[in-house]
């Protein structure tokens, strides 16, 4: 599915750069040993600025979903209806990401299914974004 191209900023650039290398990384607070997503300039919990990045396994689980029929996002409208799934990472289920679940028909989602990350090009800039496919 065509998607908007994310525009990396100073904080998010390592995440998007890793996507372009087909790697999934999550920001990590080195002070309180806690993953954080989306990334921030400091740790939301302990306010430390000692923030690094950890590559994660790329495995996850479908936490929940909805099925979009009338999106405000123009680029997505041609593909309606489509799934929007909430993925929880195997490395830390508190960390959530989104997916259209390529390969799974709209509203044929099984919550709890194991998924694996893959990376999809976006048209405007070529920036890759993470997507998730049921294993």
């Amino acid at each position, binding site marked *: 599915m065509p998607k908007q191209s*994310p525009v990396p900023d100073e904080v998010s650039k390592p995440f998007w750069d890793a996507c372009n290398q087909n790697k999934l990384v999550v920001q990590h607070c080195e002070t309180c040993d806690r993953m954080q997503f989306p990334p921030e300039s400091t740790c939301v919990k302990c306010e430390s600025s000692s923030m690094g990045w950890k590559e994660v396994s790329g495995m996850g689980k479908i*936490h929940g979903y*909805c099925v979009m*029929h009338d999106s*405000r996002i123009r680029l997505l409208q041609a593909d309606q209806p489509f799934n*929007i799934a*909430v993925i929880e990472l195997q490395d830390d289920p508190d960390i*959530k990401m*989104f997916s259209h679940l390529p390969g799974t028909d709209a509203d044929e989602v099984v919550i709890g299914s194991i998924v694996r990350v893959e990376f999809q090009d976006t048209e*405007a800039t070529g920036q890759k974004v993470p997507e998730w496919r049921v294993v």
Partner: protein
Amino acid sequence: MSVTQNAPASIYRTKEDLGVWEHRGKVAVVGIGHSPTFRRWDERLETSVGYLTIQAIQKALEDAGVKPEEVDGVVSSPKGMGEGWAPRPIPEDFANTYKPTDGDPNDGLDGASADWIVNNVPGLDNVSFTMHGPACISNALVVAAQAVGDGLAKTCLVVRGTGNIGGRYGQYGAAAADQASGASQWTNPWGWQLIPQIAFGFDQYCRKYGSNHDKMAPFILNQRRNGSMFPEGFYYQNRPEDLQITTEDYVSARWICKPMNLYDCDLPIQTAWAYLITTADRAKDMKQKPVYILNHCSQRGVVRSLVETLEETEAFTDSIAKKVYQGSGLTASELDICNPYDGFTLFTQYYLEGLKWHGVKRGEAHDFWAGDIRVEGPHPFSSSGGNNGNGRTRTWNQTDTMQQLQGRAGLRQVTIRAETGLAGAFTPGVSDWMVYGISPD
């Protein structure tokens, strides 16, 4: 640019265990004013947000029996909910009629800042205090209540106008772009916005408690029934036939984002409204029966990751309830009128269950709605009809609660005791709440 500033964070009672509000019963609402409602702006001066805002303010002052010269404070929620007017040219008659706000020629078209109001409402010559409560009238009411309690103003207008220009709502700007920046870099590529968040959360709720979307029907139909008895509302004034939906209409409506359908969404409209708040001492001499403010509180939830999980939503609404009751000194059984926010309808059950109004516990709201929630009945939940029954403003629940306590809710007047009431908006994570009573004690 508008010189009035947003309220500082310190004005909001966001923390639990703050005790009873220090100004409980010392501040009161004494005036309510609504302009006429319209579906969209037809670009006439007489239907502009600015014109409607002045109308609403004049009605609130008249309702209270207060002259504009007696007003010394204005708190505005300065932007409406729809698309901004810029970069379209300012209509000539609007530019010729109203004094613009320095640096913001669109002020009065998208909403009305406190500065625009002071500049353009005839007779507002003695205003010494202005502040903004952004995004929601409940926010502005909270700000004004605290400001009057703190002595920053004695007689304070609380105002919002909202516009709705042509085109598909929300499908402009970042939504129409090919790239996503800022916070939307994490969400827009997948189409995650507030609607999917609410739909996803509702699906989680139904799975946890064994409910389903069809069980929303009694609530939706009752919201529209209540709207049919709200003369200030959009549907009452413009489309009463749209309120006559059946259960079949509801359950067969097209999906917006399954499990959210068309009738779970509110209709954007063009209108303005105003309230007048003053000290309890002054309120005694005004035209209407005072509605005393017993508490205000706010929720500013922080989610762990990209989404608000059901567990977080329930924790947020538990916290709201705790603050509502702690700050007012009321218990759940002492809260008579319960008007939490309904736009979108699919999050209303979280408020009801968090508040435990009429004993409703987690997972029980949908069964409760299948009982008698009519205004004539024993459990008149959301007696305003909310946004769903009246159009998108986030204010009907405030007006209805005030009117119920004053005994002037007309056909909506509940038959149960109406001595205390609650209204607030917006989401479980970010919302502001007012508790009212007929007595200052």
